[in-house]
């Protein structure tokens, strides 16, 4: 077990100008579950592969447990990785797959078998130890990939979208199991996903990346309540935060016809106003709008309301709890209940 540090780590793929990961600074504590999240092409997988040693580091450094591993080959980093497609060795049985790393380290056969059995017990794989990967279901293969990682007792677990090949129901179940397993083992874990729900539910802290640059690292709660910039605000949360551009020189801040409380410190120009769907309410007062889409989820509904804002059309998504009898094309009023987020013209958060 160890802490992990990225210190200005940069990766520029050969033949490209722009860094896939641009001077990443990140401290991951011992035993922490850190999630790297971002849209595709954000550099999250590259960042993980840099830690694994599968990607050359063009600038800065990476260290594991205080040891600079920037130039250390993967086999000497004492890490374990779970791949998106599991990468099980097709010619080996489940037991051999799990024991492969131990064998490479020259661990005795009996000891190897003992540790494989232990890990198999944890993951409920005991009866499959003699099977080949092709004779396993997707969920079982995923567990074998996990088993291969935990049997090594490595310093760090690296996981590259390990759940994305599972069907929706199994994914949710495995998500919980995985978080629970990590907490029990207490091994530092770096987990890559593009799914912000996975990031929020599993991570102790979540690092949001975009275009190779770190946007924000925070606990899920803080990421949700105080996003550092416009991008994080829009990326975290489902459905996304309503982000409406405002004209900086237009007098008092307004969303449609509704005034926005909490003016920024003087002199800062507001470029965007953000408000989460649960902080809006359909009622008898507020901004005039027309319902365009209703997403009924049973316990709640998300109502899309077209409003007029600064002379152009915008859509606000409003959460409506309980059963709603609103119809498409109804005229409604949207009231602002909770806090609004303000972002400058550069997209950065403006504290109120």
């Amino acid at each position, binding site marked *: 077990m160890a802490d992990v540090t990225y210190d200005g780590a940069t990766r520029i793929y050969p033949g490209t100008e722009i860094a896939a990961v641009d001077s990443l600074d990140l401290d991951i504590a011992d035993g922490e579950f850190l999630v790297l999240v971002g849209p595709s092409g954000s550099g999250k997988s590259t960042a993980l592969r840099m830690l694994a040693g599968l990607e050359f580091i063009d600038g800065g450094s990476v260290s594991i447990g205080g040891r600079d591993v920037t130039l250390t080959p993967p086999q000497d980093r004492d890490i374990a990785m779970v791949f998106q*497609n599991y*990468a099980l060795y097709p010619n080996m049985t489940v037991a051999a797959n799990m024991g492969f*790393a131990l064998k490479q380290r020259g661990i005795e056969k009996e000891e190897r078998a003992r540790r494989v059995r232990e890990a198999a017990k944890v993951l409920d794989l005991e009866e499959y130890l003699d099977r080949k990967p092709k004779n396993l279901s997707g969920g079982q*293969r995923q567990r074998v990939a996990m088993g291969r990682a935990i049997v090594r007792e490595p310093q760090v677990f690296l996981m590259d979208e390990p759940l994305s090949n599972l069907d929706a129901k199994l994914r949710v179940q495995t998500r919980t199991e995985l978080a629970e397993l990590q907490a029990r083992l207490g091994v530092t874990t770096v987990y890559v996903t593009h799914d912000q729900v996975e990031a929020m539910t599993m991570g102790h802290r979540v690092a949001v990346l975009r275009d190779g640059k770190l946007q924000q690292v925070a606990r899920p709660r803080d990421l949700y309540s105080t996003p550092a910039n416009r991008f994080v605000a829009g990326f975290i949360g489902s459905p996304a935060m309503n982000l409406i551009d405002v004209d900086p020189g237009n007098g008092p801040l307004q969303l449609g016809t509704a005034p926005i409380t909490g003016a920024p410190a003087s002199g800062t120009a507001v470029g965007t106003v953000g408000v989460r769907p649960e902080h809006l309410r359909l009622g008898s007062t507020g901004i005039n709008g027309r319902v365009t889409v209703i997403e009924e989820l049973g316990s709640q509904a998300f109502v899309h309301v077209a409003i007029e804002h600064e002379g152009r059309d915008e859509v606000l998504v409003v959460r409506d709890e309980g059963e709603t009898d609103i119809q498409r094309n109804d005229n409604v009023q949207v009231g602002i209940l909770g806090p609004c987020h303000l972002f400058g013209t550069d997209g950065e958060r403006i504290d109120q």
Partner: protein
Amino acid sequence: MSTERSQIVGQSRRSTIILGLAAWIAALLVFFPIFWMVLNGFKEEIDANSSPKLIFDPTSDRYTEVTTQTEGLLGFQEAFTNSFVIVAISTLLVLIMAIPAAYSLSIRPIAKWRDVLFFFISTKFLPIVAAILPLYIIGTRYGLTNSRIGLVILYTAMNLPLAVWMLRSFFSEVPKELVEAAQIDGAGIRGQITSVILPIVAPGIAATALLCVIFAWNEFFLAVQLNSVDGSTVPIWVSSNVSTRGNFLAKLSAASTLATLPVVIAGWAAQKRMIRGLAMGAIK
């Protein structure tokens, strides 16, 4: 309803039958000469040369004839021994060189790997006839004509480009993550190759080896030009049964059948390996 499993949706029954029939005719056309050769080998010369008969008294006399050693002539045993040694060693050499080459052209591609690949195949552009004179001169100067070593070198060179090309495409099918997983699991390059890559590409290696064996076994031109006295191979032995004193079709058929057998056996042995699918269940 599942009896017609091979039926394609929307295809009429009639066209299925016609296509099937055409396939059978094509296959039989290709197979017939081989069938006739085997048959002729068991006939008396007079039957083989007269009007074709399917029903006859089979005899193994022709086989005795062709395998009997005649003083001063290339014998069956000598030719087969030469061929076995030359084919086995050259194929082994090809694999020893082609496997690392394929690795460095696919799994960890070197810079300009496309150019390297083109260079390999470009060596096959030159017709072998155009090279025979220099080969002969060099061969005689270094004592490589009429020796097994000469043909081993030439057959290795002849098959290497093809083997590199074939193996490269098989190696390219190995999922990159598997090699990375092995790396993270602590395997060095040797461990990655022997424990992970080779078992997956084994069918491909078997297929490549089979082709090398076939090409080397059947090679005639170089053998007859360079090794007509010593170190002669099976194709030379077969052609030595072509006589100027008459048409001994049955005897020639027996010799050809014997020459074909090792390739058929090699093909059968390799097929068992090749059938196993590539990288099944490796990912997802």
